């Protein structure tokens, strides 16, 4: 590096640049908060949906599935599973209920969680709410 470029110049770029972009990021975050209600489907968050989210978390579903593309890549995307299952919460519940406890020989299988009917409803409603989030048309097609 040329001698004309001194350490204190490098330091100023570091301090100035970081500060500027931290502030810009905070500004964008505030703006995002303001605009979110248009896209985040938060109007659909009921007590049941919140319960469903808690069940989603406490059974570590993200450890195999993706949700809006984030998570593990071992099992199908569930952000759009409600649409994929023909807009049917019953179909989602039926799938979760039908998992064999011992798995399927040689294949990947979802564990049997023994959810109650009320819990199944909550999870299905949570997935329905998630499906309603405006994700800029992601995923590209119904297969997720």
């Amino acid at each position: 590096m040329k001698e004309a470029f001194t350490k204190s110049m490098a330091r100023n770029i570091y301090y100035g640049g970081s500060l500027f972009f931290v502030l810009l990021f905070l500004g964008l975050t505030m703006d995002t908060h303001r605009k979110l209600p248009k896209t985040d489907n938060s109007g659909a968050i009921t007590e049941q949906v919140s319960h469903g989210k808690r069940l989603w978390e406490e059974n570590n579903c993200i450890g195999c599935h993706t949700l809006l593309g984030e998570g593990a890549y071992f099992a199908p995307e569930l952000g759009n599973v409600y649409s994929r299952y023909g807009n049917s919460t019953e179909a989602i519940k039926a799938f979760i209920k039908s998992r064999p406890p011992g798995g399927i020989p040689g294949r990947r299988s979802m564990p049997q969680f023994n959810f109650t009917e009320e819990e199944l409803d909550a999870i299905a409603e949570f997935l329905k709410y998630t499906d309603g989030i405006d994700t800029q048309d992601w995923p590209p097609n119904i297969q997720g």
Partner: protein
Amino acid sequence: MKYQSQAVAKLYFIAAIGLFVGQILFGVILGLQYVIGDFLFPTIPFNVARMVHTNLLIVWLLFGFMGASYYLVPEESQREIHSVKLAKWLFWIFLGAGALIILSYLLIPYARLAELTGNSFLPTMGREFLEQPTIGKIGIAVVCTGFLYNIAVTVLSGRKTVINMVLLTGLLGLVVLWLFSFVNPENLVLDKYYWWWVVHLWVEGVWELILGSLLAFVLIKTTGVDREVIEKWLYLIIAMALITGIIGTGHHYFWIGTPHYWLWFGSVFSALEPIPFFMMTLFAFNMVNKRRRDHPNKAATLWALGTGVMAFLGAGVWGFLHTLAPVNYYTHGTQITAAHGHMAFYGAYVMVVLCIISYAMPKMRGRVANSNKAQVVEMWSFWMMTVSMVFITLFLTAAGILQVYLQRMSDAPLPFMVVQEKMEFFYWMREVAGVVFLIGLIVYLVSFFVKGEELPAVATEMKAPAVD
């Protein structure tokens, strides 16, 4: 070793390596579960093995950063560590808590663990990488804060160098951003939004400060290049890391329900994220080329160069590959992401920790460098692990391309599980590469026990190279 208290780093390094072994064993299990779906089911389901794999990675890297700090800070600050006792206490607390968390994943069903630890009081569990019970997260926060305090007092009351100040800034950022792991709104979009403040702003933000300062420290020591030059590079690298990386968070805000403008912010800034990593490569090679001494620890120099190259490839090139929104639209959440994740973590953070271990361990064992014989073994492990990681990445990339095409781009998109079966060939190849990585890791462990002839106690000074 100039200061007695540096020796506390040894504990941390040994724990780091031990947990690293655990991480890789579970990696091999996961790779097998990808092709033999019912392997260990339902005893260790995939999600449990994956939690163990990723959480062990995070914990052992933290052990590595802590050990590195305890080794580096006294030499930079020219004083002993504020409290060796605190460092030792925190070590055992962290190791105990870490082991407890991992064992609880393996022994208790996750939902039961959530119940036992009172997740409903402050629900933080069940989010990728942040699966630890809330009490565990609090423990991590306490340990990291105690550690930060110990380092901060040492740094601030001693000689302040660019290296130890940048390190301190990075560690402060690490602790502060961890607090966002407690933020878990009911609104899924906001949950995801702030989840990235831990995940992205750690690995593509403040951790790069830690990475830069560790690399700079090892390069000063092994090359003898003037501190002024090294510090100037360090400032520029971390400046670019934060300038690109902070708004670069936007590349995670494409498809999660956030406003449209993030497609632009995220694409433009994250497209620049390879720059700091490329500068790291230039930095490492330049400093080694301009070296003013031939340090007998060739292995440490190799790890330093390797960090530069592999961080650039894994984080820079493989990150850029799928970071532009129009590309990411098709690749988001596929094996392309997995490919990038593996090489980026290995190239940037695993390698820099192994680099400082390689430099510091011999010193803490009373020699300037290991015998040539031991170094040759260590270098073998470097190549085995690095080359197999390149292959893991290539096979996952191939799998990912196939997945993107069959599931998202072809005229008749196929269901996820149908596509997974068609990718099986690449998953098998990845598993083979993973086993080679494990063998490389065993060779690495062996290198610590190889004897051989003693080396001279000091580095040989070279004639000053031609000034350019």
